[in-house]
């Protein structure tokens, strides 16, 4: 009897040392208002994890176990799943989540527990300012708003711009404000600056008011769902000029909801599947073979974020939170969305692309460097 207990205990120790998987938490909005974001994010993360496991794990033969949770695009739900992953599942690091408002609810939980976190796509400035355990794989709102304004002023030759944004969403407000700042700095005029309530379906009152100010271009830094509705209604009201937006447009549903109304639309994004760099083409090929769909930026950034995190854990050689954090800080890695190094606020320094909607398809237009 005693012997068998001893053997069991020994076995347990051995399995702890050799076979224990490294648990990583993944979070994304698989249902709710940004469901396609969540699904792409999950796909990207799973693909990265499979590749690392196929290569023999992260370090010392230890493989990755991804525990993925749905935040439903809701900050309250987000806080719950962050806590669940840390307290209940005991993950060593978290990759997630997508929407800034949800990440802002989860980041303080990671910081307080000393769990390193990297958000693939939360572009709001405040996210990484939560603390030194919080990183991201994408560029931030000021940069997107600035690039959008540069593009509208220089490429589209617009001189009068209008913006419509979601009053209840930090991401769209942040983009709109930075667009305005840069557009006015360039010498253009922002003739209308209108908020709309979250969850609205009728935007005609605000759009009618915007059109009375006669803008050359309208900046719509919303998520694809709202963009589709806004585009449709602004075209119905007779506006034929260009529409410009941010990475929230990046979804196959944009064209499904907006139809022909989103033609002559442009948005800033993190990556284009038409980029010719081999690392991108390799990623696109593998993703298509696995999921049967073109990877969007959400998938690419989730894949990148997971790579950055696992690379840091490999270099740290331990699952201790503070060691992973220190390794993340010294990241210098070539990933799908560009070469990533972190600045002092743990934001990556990287380039942006402009995508145009042409005949219902997103087409690569140009790359803008920081």
């Amino acid at each position, binding site marked *: 009897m005693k012997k068998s207990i001893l053997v069991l205990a020994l076995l347990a120790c051995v399995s702890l040392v050799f076979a224990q998987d490294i648990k990583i938490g993944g979070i994304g909005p698989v249902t709710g208002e940004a469901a396609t974001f969540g699904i792409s994010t999950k796909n990207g993360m799973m693909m990265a994890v499979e590749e690392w496991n196929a290569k023999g794990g992260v370090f010392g033969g230890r493989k990755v176990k991804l525990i993925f949770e749905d935040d439903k695009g809701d900050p309250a739900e987000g806080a719950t799943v962050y806590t669940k992953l840390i307290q209940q599942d005991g993950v060593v690091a978290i990759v997630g989540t997508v929407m800034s408002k949800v990440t802002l609810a989860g980041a303080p939980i990671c910081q307080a527990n000393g769990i390193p976190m990297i958000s693939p796509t939360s572009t709001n400035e405040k996210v990484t300012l939560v603390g030194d355990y919080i990183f991201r794989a994408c560029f931030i709102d000021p940069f997107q708003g600035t690039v959008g304004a540069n593009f509208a002023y220089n490429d589209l030759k617009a001189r009068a711009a209008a913006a419509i944004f979601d009053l209840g969403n930090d991401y769209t407000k942040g983009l709109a404000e930075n667009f305005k700042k840069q557009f006015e700095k360039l010498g253009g005029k922002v003739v209308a600056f209108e908020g709309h309530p979250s969850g609205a379906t009728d935007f005609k*009152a*605000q759009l009618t008011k915007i059109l*009375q100010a006669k803008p050359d271009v309208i900046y719509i830094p919303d998520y694809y769902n709202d963009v*589709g509705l806004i585009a449709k209604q602004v075209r119905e009201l007779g506006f034929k000029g260009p529409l410009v937006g941010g990475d929230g447009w990046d979804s196959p549903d944009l064209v499904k909801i907006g139809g022909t109304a989103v033609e002559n639309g442009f948005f800033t994004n993190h990556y284009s599947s038409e980029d010719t760099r081999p690392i991108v083409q390799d990623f696109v090929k593998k993703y298509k073979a696995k999921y049967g769909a073109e990877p969007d930026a959400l998938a690419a950034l989730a894949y990148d974020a997971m790579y950055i995190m696992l690379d840091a854990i490999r270099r740290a050689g331990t699952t201790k939170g503070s060691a992973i954090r220190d390794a993340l800080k010294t990241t210098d890695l070539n990933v799908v969305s560009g070469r990533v190094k972190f600045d002092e606020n743990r934001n990556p320094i990287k380039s942006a692309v402009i995508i145009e909607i042409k005949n219902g398809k997103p087409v690569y237009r140009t790359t803008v460097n920081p």
Partner: protein
Amino acid sequence: MGPLINPQQIINGLQLGSIYALIALGYTMVYGIVRLINFAHGDFFMIGAYAAYAAFFAFNAMVAGRTGTLAFIVLVIAMATSASVAWLANKLAYKPLRYKPKLSSLITAIGVSMFIEYFFSAFPAIGASYRAFPEIIPRRDIHIGPAVVSNLVLIDLAVAAILMIGLTLLVRRTTLGKAMRAVSQDKDAARLMGIDIEMVISFTFLIGGAFAGAAGLLAGMTYPRIFPYMGILPGLKAFIAAVLGGIGNIPGAMLGAYIMGIAETFASAYNSLIGEGIAFAILILVLLIRPTGLLGEKIADKI
């Protein structure tokens, strides 16, 4: 021309008002007959939108290119589906509580509403995510002076007007309408006169549901994004419209809905947040100043 008062905004308001009107009618009719505020009514509107969505994909290939026929089929299916669900809700949830305290029915209505919403979200074929509503009728623009009217606006206005005229004729001119009016005035006396009250109530739910279904289709075409919770806010606003017009009063619901649509549009043009809150401001004002609504009669007890 002032930035606020302009013809385009009035058109925007009328379009929004048409959708509110179709929903508000169901609220007001059911209240008129059984004194029940059917909070699940907004969800019948949502079901109409989903039924239209399904009907479009079922029949699109079959009628190939004949837009008018397709739109008509989709409308009929949307109305029929919502009507059946409304009828079923009455049979299963409200009828057993008919002669129980009114509060029980009211709470049951909230329960039915939540059940429909969460059942739909949990149902794998529907799910909680947004869906893009297909373009059933391609958009065409008609310019009238400084205002732009798309054919969608005209369709919204016309469908709402035709249905409302039909309802008015039904209530005023037919025997069934007479029975409905009788039941709404005095249930017991109506029963003594040989009117089958349950039949009249079922019929009222059918019509109310059908109108909500039509509104669901129109909303889907106008705002092409549908999801299981889409009925909550329009339902609430249509309810306020019905209260504004005088709950239980059919012309009142129509009037209230158009006032609400226009008020909301003008308020949103002034400031988005005020636009979002104007409906509730109206509700508070009506309850304070004229609780019976614009066209409502005095009723001793209300919920």
